[in-house]
């Protein structure tokens, strides 16, 4: 921990906390490596970038504000379908599709945030689960609109800026997803270091104390939930645009559970937790894609038990602990 010295003022201390760490720059430079090192895996890299952003959006509510959601895929799915429908029936330009998806997911997120913010603990878990399942059922039964279990067909995404086509190798897809991930990440980073970010951490640390310092926790939670929904919507839209399809899988409980696992694996409440967790999870799943899915979930289960029992702050939390010990001999 930073020791106060004569030169540290409270303001400079807080300023230093928001400053870029060299490792962060290394991390972002490393995201460019797949273009040169793994040109055959760019589609996977694009999926990882999208999932990482999704995990980041969950982190804003779960990691920072302590709101456990088992239905976050609802917003991902809304984004996925609305971007698909927009390109199918209105316009195939990708950025406007992103905006439409973000707006719709945000609207729905804002609406449901009034419900979410009233609950805590088990009822909250149940209500998010219930809303998520409800969204899945709606998508499933609105066959005429979504294609139901066949998925939404006939999505066509135009080239980015009218120039860069979505190619077979996923070069454009990865560049696009990575670009959006980076921009949204910058915004999220800003948010975390803002007064609002501090308020969210306050909610996580002690919900009961918040009203006693004059805080309206529910208003904060509504705002955070809406922002997380917008980002999740963008993720869904990215997936639709880069794969030219949208399926029920995008709005399933499985997706909500998976993203939770990734976030916790990487380390919730840390900006890079979701990103690292998503990368490890997706790469591992790709490597083990030969085995049947139910055995994949055996290892996920073991991993979850192990993380909860031995690595309560995820991989990044564990690393931080090790380096802290190493620095203070």
């Amino acid at each position, binding site marked *: 921990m930073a020791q106060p010295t004569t030169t540290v003022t409270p303001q400079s201390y807080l300023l230093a906390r928001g400053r870029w760490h060299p490792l962060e720059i290394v991390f972002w430079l490393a995201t460019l490596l797949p273009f040169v090192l793994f040109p055959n895996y760019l589609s996977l890299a694009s999926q990882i970038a999208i999932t990482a952003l999704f995990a980041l959006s969950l982190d804003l509510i*779960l990691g920072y504000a*302590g709101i*456990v959601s*088992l239905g976050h895929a609802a917003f991902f799915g809304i984004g996925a379908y609305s971007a698909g429908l927009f390109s199918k029936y209105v316009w195939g330009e990708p950025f406007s599709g992103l905006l439409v998806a973000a707006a719709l997911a945000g609207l729905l997120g804002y609406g449901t945030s009034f*419900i979410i913010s*009233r*609950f805590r*603990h*088990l*009822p*909250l*878990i*149940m*209500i998010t*689960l*219930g*809303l998520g*399942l*409800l969204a899945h*059922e*709606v998508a*499933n*039964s609105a066959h005429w609109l979504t294609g139901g279990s066949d998925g939404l067909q006939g999505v066509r995404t135009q080239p980015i800026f009218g120039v860069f086509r979505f190619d077979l190798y996923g070069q454009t897809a990865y560049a696009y997803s990575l670009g959006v991930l980076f921009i949204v990440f910058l915004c999220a980073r800003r948010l975390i270091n803002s007064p609002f970010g501090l308020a969210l951490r306050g909610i996580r640390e002690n919900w009961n104390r918040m009203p006693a310092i004059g805080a309206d926790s529910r208003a904060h939670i509504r705002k955070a939930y809406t922002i997380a929904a917008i980002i999740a919507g963008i993720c869904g839209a990215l997936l639709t645009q880069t794969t030219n399809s949208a399926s029920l899988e995008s709005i399933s*409980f499985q997706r909500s*559970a998976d993203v*939770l*696992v990734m976030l*916790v694996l990487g380390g*919730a409440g840390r900006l890079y937790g979701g990103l690292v967790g998503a990368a490890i999870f997706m790469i591992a799943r790709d490597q083990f894609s030969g085995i*049947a899915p*139910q*055995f994949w*979930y*055996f290892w*996920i*289960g*073991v*991993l*979850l*038990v192990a*993380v*909860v*029992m031995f690595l*309560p702050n995820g991989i990044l939390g564990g690393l931080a602990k090790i380096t802290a010990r190493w620095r203070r001999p």
Partner: protein
Amino acid sequence: MLPPIFGVLFDGIAYGMLLFVLSVGLSVTLGLMNFVNLAHCAFAMIGGYVTVTLVNQFGWPFLATLPAAFAAAAVTSVVLERLLYRRLYRASDLDQVLLTIGLAFISVSVAAYIFGTVQQPISTPEALRGSVQFLGLNLGKYRLFLIGVALVVTLALVIGLEYTRFGAQVRASVDNQRMARGLGIDVDWTFASTFALGSGLAGLGGALAIEIVGLDPNFSFTYLVYVLIVVSVGGLGSIAGSFAAAMLIGISDIAGKYYVPELGAFLIYLVMVVVLMWKPAGLFGKR
């Protein structure tokens, strides 16, 4: 002659009874320790597979396997409780969710590894097959049996909780844990045994469910959703609440699938969301 709606009602009640047996244990343990146990239906699944194995491999009569299903689930749950759950009683909701989702994932994989992913066949005794005619309704014998078992379980639970020393300890611990500790009640022991009992009932429910809903490795998750809905709608720690909620969900689900099949499971999710919005602590919940 009764109109067909009574037949639907009958099926709904039978289904509700099944849900009640599956979920009442979770409700009591949740009320007792506030522990979010998403692996509850994994215990139910253990009961189901024990029954299937004993009937199909060892030729046990169906009814004789039911106590075994209860015992297997109860014993497994207590082992896990001592090894893992106990350490997380004071942990956050999130940690509890993660641990128990992890266990549920593992249970799915293990079941798939041992038994394969197919639906398990089960042969019930002759006496429970077919149906009886009553005022023009076809009432499935197995469903009648199910209702009977559930009522016996309910009665036993109510009597056990109301009139025995153990029941008094459980109720005291649910009402006010600190005070119960103050009175010298061994809350940890009370919880471990309640947990075993609740999981055992889930195991029994899992065995009884095979004939109605089938059994495959995804049981842990498929019925988890129903059980959680029953528990949260009914209110934590309330047997009456679980019973009422199980009936409500059972009947809505069957009626929904019968009359508006295109809605799928939409109806019960809607029931849950509406009830929770109206009463966040559930119909019979105190907190």
